[in-house]
C-alpha cells in the first residue's frame, strides 16, 4: 500500500501513464482481437488486478473511470459512489464510514486539480455500474466498448454545461 500512496502523490504522472497505456492498447487492438478478447481477458485479469490494487486499491469493477475521478478509485468509497462525495464527510476530510480513512472524493478532487489532461472529467455524470463486468479486465472492456455501454434509456454522453468554471 505504501508504494501506491507514494505514487498517488503524482496524479499528473499517473494520468500520463494512463494515456500512454490507453494508446498502447488501442494500437494492440487488432492483435488482441485476433487472439480473442475472452482469452486475453483471462491472461490480463491477474496482472491488472495486482498492479491496480497496489497503486489504487482497485476493486476490479471492470469499467475503470480512474482518469475521470482524479486517478482515485471511486469504488474504494464504502458507498461505491461514482459521482462525488456524500454529505457525510467529516470536518477533517475523512470518511463517514471509516473514520481513519481520508474521503476518496476529497482526495479525488484535490488530485484532479493537478491533472491537466483529464482533470475536468470529474464533472461528468457517470452512468450506473454494470455489475456483470465485476472481476473482468477493464482494459479489454475498453477495447470491446462494454465499459461505455449504458442502460438503454440512459443518455450516451453526459457533460455538464456550466455557466462559469
Amino acid at each position, binding site marked *: 500500500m505504501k508504494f501506491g500512496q507514494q505514487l498517488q502523490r503524482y496524479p499528473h504522472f499517473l494520468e500520463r501513464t494512463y494515456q500512454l497505456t490507453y494508446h498502447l492498447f488501442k494500437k494492440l487492438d487488432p492483435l488482441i482481437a485476433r487472439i480473442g478478447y475472452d482469452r486475453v481477458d483471462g491472461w490480463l485479469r491477474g496482472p491488472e488486478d495486482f498492479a491496480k490494487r497496489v497503486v489504487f486499491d482497485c476493486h476490479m469493477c471492470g469499467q475503470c473511470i480512474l482518469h475521470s475521478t482524479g486517478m482515485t478509485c471511486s469504488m474504494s468509497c464504502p*458507498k461505491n459512489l461514482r*459521482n462525488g*462525495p456524500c454529505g457525510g464527510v467529516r470536518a477533517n476530510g475523512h470518511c463517514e464510514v471509516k473514520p481513519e480513512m481520508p474521503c476518496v472524493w476529497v482526495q479525488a478532487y484535490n488530485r484532479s486539480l493537478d491533472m491537466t489532461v483529464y482533470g475536468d472529467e470529474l464533472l461528468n455524470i457517470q452512468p450506473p455500474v454494470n455489475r456483470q463486468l465485476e472481476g473482468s479486465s477493464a482494459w479489454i472492456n475498453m477495447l470491446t466498448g462494454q465499459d461505455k455501454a449504458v*442502460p438503454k434509456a*440512459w443518455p450516451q454522453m*453526459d457533460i455538464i*454545461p456550466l*455557466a462559469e468554471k
Partner: protein
Amino acid sequence: MNSEYKSDGRLERVLRSGRFAVTAELNPPDSADPDEVYQAALVLSEVCDGINATDGSGAHCHMSSVAICALLTRAGYAPIFQVSCRDRNRIAIQGDVLGAAAMGVSNVLCLTGDDVTAGDQPQAKRVFDFDSIQLLRTIKIMRDEGKFLSGRKLTTPPRLFLGAASNPFVPPFDWRPYRLAKKIEAGADFIQSQYCFDVPRFRQFMQKVRDLGLHEKAFFLVGVGPLRSEKTAEFMRTKVPGVHIPDAIVERLRKTPKEKKVEEGKRICVEIIQQVREIEGVSGVHVMAYRQEELVAEIISEAGLLPRPRIGGPVNNARPRRTHPVNGV
C-alpha cells in the same frame, strides 16, 4: 391541468409562484399503527407545503417511507417521498417510484443515504447499486421519456417533482457547488440542504451557486432545526453524519439557564431562517425537528411564514383521482 408543471403537487406550485416555501420532516413511527403517522402529520400539515417521509434515516429502521406516503396521500396530505440508495437496488427503486406516484405522491427526494454503520444494525448488507445522481437521472428518464432504465415503456409515466440533497457544510467545500450542478443536471428540480447552523459559510456557498447560475435552475430549500440543549448539539455534531455546528452556537446554548434552553434553541432556529431568507437564491426552508415536532409550528409561525398559501388546494391531487371501477374506493 397545466402542462408546464412536472407534477400535480402543491410544493411545485408554491415554489413556481415565487412564494417562500416551507417543508418539514415527519418522524416516522416504530409502529404498525397508522394513527401514529396521522398524529405526527396533523401538527405539520397546516404549517408547511410538503411533509418529508424519511427512508430509514441514520440507518435506523422505522415505518417505510413509501407506506407513510401512501397513508398521507390517503388523508389528503402532500408528502415528499424520500428514497435512499442504501437498501434497494435499481429494480426495487423503480417499482417503488411507480407505486408511490400511483398513490398520489408528487415529490421525490433522491438521497445517497447514511451508511449502515450509522444505525443500530451495522451487520446489514449495504446495497448502493445507484448513487443519488444516477437515481435522479433514472427517475427523470421515467418521468420525461416514459421508460424504465432498461428502455421498456411505461403506459403512464409518473408525474413527479424531483428533489436532491446538498450539504455545503462539509469538505470538499470548493467542489460542493459543482456537485450541486451535477445533481441539477441529472434532474433535480428542488434541493433540500443539510442542517444550516453556519450562515456565513452558507452565504459563501450560495455566492458560488449564483455564479454558476444554479439558483435559476432549481429551488433551494435550506435545512434548519431547533437544538434542545448544548448536549444535543454536541451529540449531533459528533454522532450524526454530516452535521456541522459552530462552537459559537454550542456556547450560546451552554450559557443559557437550563429552563430556557429549549426556548433559546428555537430562537436560534428562527434567527437562522430570517437570515437565510435574505440570501438571493434561497426559495424556502426545510424544518427538521427530531423528536421536537411540537416546536415546528411555533418556529414557522415566529419566523413569520404563516399562513401557508393554499395553491393547488390543501390536498395533494390537483387532478381528479380515478376511482376503483368496482367498489368506488
